[in-house]
């Protein structure tokens, strides 16, 4: 009995200590730690709480082309196109549904939002984004943003209670997914990335496909690695995160807009062939149908960006020049007006 009393008193004291320490932490080291381990949250701090909407984006939102005379973000362009509402921006490189979910959980309670925009990047469903080494940082950020006591979040980071993996482990995961995550394409010999990619690299595709050269062969390989998959709505963690975002938004009473980014389907077809395009279209259609059924407004830019608007030419990205960004903003505007969210 004496021991139970001894332990109980100390447990109560520990809880009191913990809250006091948390308070001290918030006033001392917290902001600096957030800058270091979860800087994406800083953007959320900067949001005007009177905003009507928040645009969550990754590098597609802010990436610019040197020759662009206007270097506005997509979200800024959208904000200008809809003068009746104010749209705040939260963006950072490499973000995906998992990080958006952490951010959505941290939207200030006092905000009276009409809608949020979530950037839906097709490639973020692929193995090489899901298992990228950058995931360590994003997972750490997500933990830093967990709605518990910040001092505990910090300690959990020190105890590595997030999805930490070494670069070797991430690469191994990626290769395993490329091998094991099968896709089906009618009348096609290959059903996984590894086989398809090696077949392209080692066989005589250079002779067969006139668009393929020694120089652009690596780019073609990147297209396969980034776009060749079947989205599994049951097991893909991105889908689960997006489902949770939708559910949180429904509970909080604001609409969700998924901004499905445009991909360079022309180049994909040119370098790899119709088989890859078949998969891309299948996944696009799946995403649109799946989330439309949940009441999400999908702004489908998938085929809307002309080849000339894509900035990067050595890696498949969603980095557009200003013209491309404007197309996305215009499509968003149309959808917002059509759904009467602009008043």
């Amino acid at each position: 009995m004496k021991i139970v009393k001894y332990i109980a008193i100390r447990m109560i004291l520990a809880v009191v200590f913990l809250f006091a320490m948390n308070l001290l932490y918030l006033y001392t080291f917290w902001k600096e730690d957030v800058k270091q381990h979860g800087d994406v949250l800083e953007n959320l701090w900067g949001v005007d709480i009177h905003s009507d909407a928040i645009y969550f984006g990754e590098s597609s939102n802010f990436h610019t082309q040197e020759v662009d005379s206007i270097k506005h973000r997509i979200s800024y362009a959208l904000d200008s196109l809809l003068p009746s509402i104010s749209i705040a921006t939260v963006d950072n490189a490499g973000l995906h549904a998992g990080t958006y979910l952490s951010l959505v959980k941290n939207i200030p309670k006092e905000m009276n939002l009409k809608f949020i925009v979530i950037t839906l990047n097709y490639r973020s469903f692929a193995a090489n984004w899901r298992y990228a080494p950058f995931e360590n940082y994003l997972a750490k950020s997500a933990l830093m943003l967990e709605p518990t006591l910040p001092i505990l979040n910090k300690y959990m980071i020190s105890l590595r209670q997030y999805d930490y993996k070494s670069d070797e482990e991430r690469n191994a995961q990626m290769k395993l997914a490329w091998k094991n995550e099968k896709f089906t394409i009618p009348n096609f010999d290959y059903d996984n990335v590894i086989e398809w990619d090696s077949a392209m690299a080692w066989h005589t595709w250079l002779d067969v496909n006139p668009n393929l050269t020694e120089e652009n062969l690596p780019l073609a390989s990147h297209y396969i690695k980034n776009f060749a998959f079947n989205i599994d709505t049951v097991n893909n963690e991105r889908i689960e995160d997006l489902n949770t975002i939708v559910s949180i938004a429904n509970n909080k009473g604001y609409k969700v807009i998924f901004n499905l980014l445009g991909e360079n389907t022309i180049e994909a077809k040119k370098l790899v062939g119709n088989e890859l395009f078949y998969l891309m279209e299948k996944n696009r259609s799946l995403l649109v149908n799946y989330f439309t059924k949940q009441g999400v407004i999908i702004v489908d830019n998938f085929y809307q960006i002309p080849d000339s608007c894509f900035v990067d030419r050595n890696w498949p990205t969603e980095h557009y020049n200003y013209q491309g960004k404007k197309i996305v903003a215009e499509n968003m505007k149309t959808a917002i007006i059509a759904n009467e969210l602009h008043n």
Partner: protein
Amino acid sequence: MIFNSLEYILFLPLVFVLFYLFRHKFRVFILLAASYYFYISWNPVFIILILLSTLIDYGAGLSLERTSSKFTRRLILGISICANLGFLFFFKYFNFALENVNEIMLAVKGSYQPIEAWDIILPIGISFYTFQTMSYTIDVYNGKTKAEKNLPYFALYVCFFPQLVAGPIERYNNLMPQFKEKAQLLIQNISHGGRLILYGLFMKMVIADNLGVFVDSVYGDIAGTSSLNLLIGSVFYSFQIYCDFHGYTTIAIGSAKLFNVNLSENFRTPYLSTSVTDFWRNWHITLTTWFRDYIYYPLGGNRGTVLKWGLAILTVFIVSGVWHGAKWTFIFWGLFHALFVLFEKIVRWDKQSTNVFLKGIKWGVTFTLVTALWVFFRSPDMDAAILYFKSIGANWDIEGIDLGIEPFILLGLFVISDILTRKKNFALSLNMIPSVGRGAIYFVLIFLLLSRSATDMNPFIYFQF
């Protein structure tokens, strides 16, 4: 599972509760199961090695007691030592030996196809539990202890989880009576153990790991680092390795205390030593005494000729270097320590003095020497160690410091606490402070632990040995 992990934070209380829920005769099995689980969580395969080592030394102990034939006893001891050292050699030194054979053959023959290194994973804690079991068999052989007849108890002696992977290296006579004594659930033990675990975590996660970030960056680019940063890096490493290992040991002692087991102290403020000889009396004490009892004394100790004594010292320190790892840097680290110990004996440096100024000088020289020798210990190879020493005088660019004040404040805090607890350990020292003061100390330590622990969780340095 490592001490600074959430798994251990959950594992330890669970084992504690189970231990005291059961009657004394079942507790050995609780601790044994917990210890095996603790080890299996690293790598399940290597549990076979521990089991083999346990059975070999258990059998050797019983056999030694049953025979009086000198030859047979020597044979049994030889088999036991060969088996233990054989495991150690294969897993720890085989590739090192192969590498050196390749180099010698290349030098002798000119054209030689080197034998490729084997893909061998070092089982964690092998150097520690091997030495622990060897000490038991040697003690039985020497008649210093009786052979253990109860296999579960003996198995627990080999694998008791708080000290399994990095010591303290315990003697059978210290540990076994404590295992067999019925443990009472005492508030003092919980309090004592809890305090030590807290202080150990503070040393490891707040001090060692934070200093390690800077040390890693210095050793990652020795040539491009300024002289001042190299100096700071070497001092930081002295404290990193101390806080890392002392932190581990303190958590181990604290964890064992919860089960009413007192493990041996491994450190007594070694950086306050005024000679290298004194440093070794206070640093990794259980290993040093192991070498003293099982190598230095059998080689004659300080009896006999000066040459014999000198050879004994050289042997002990070189073996100590080799024990730490299969690299020339460790061997040179041990060799230099031996040379300094010999030099101190010759010039009678160790002679006690009441002169504070002289003591200060001796302390400064000792700390500098020990810190300098850690450069060998930390460097990946001899070239890096030599480059480190060369670079220290090369670039006195003050602009190169990008460190902030925080590591210095944390280090200062630790140094003060280390000095204050030099006579009694942290848990006992707290008893002398009123409860309000104790509360304040807990508050500061827990706050620093939660908020200032380094974010890149590192395994304990001594786990690699």
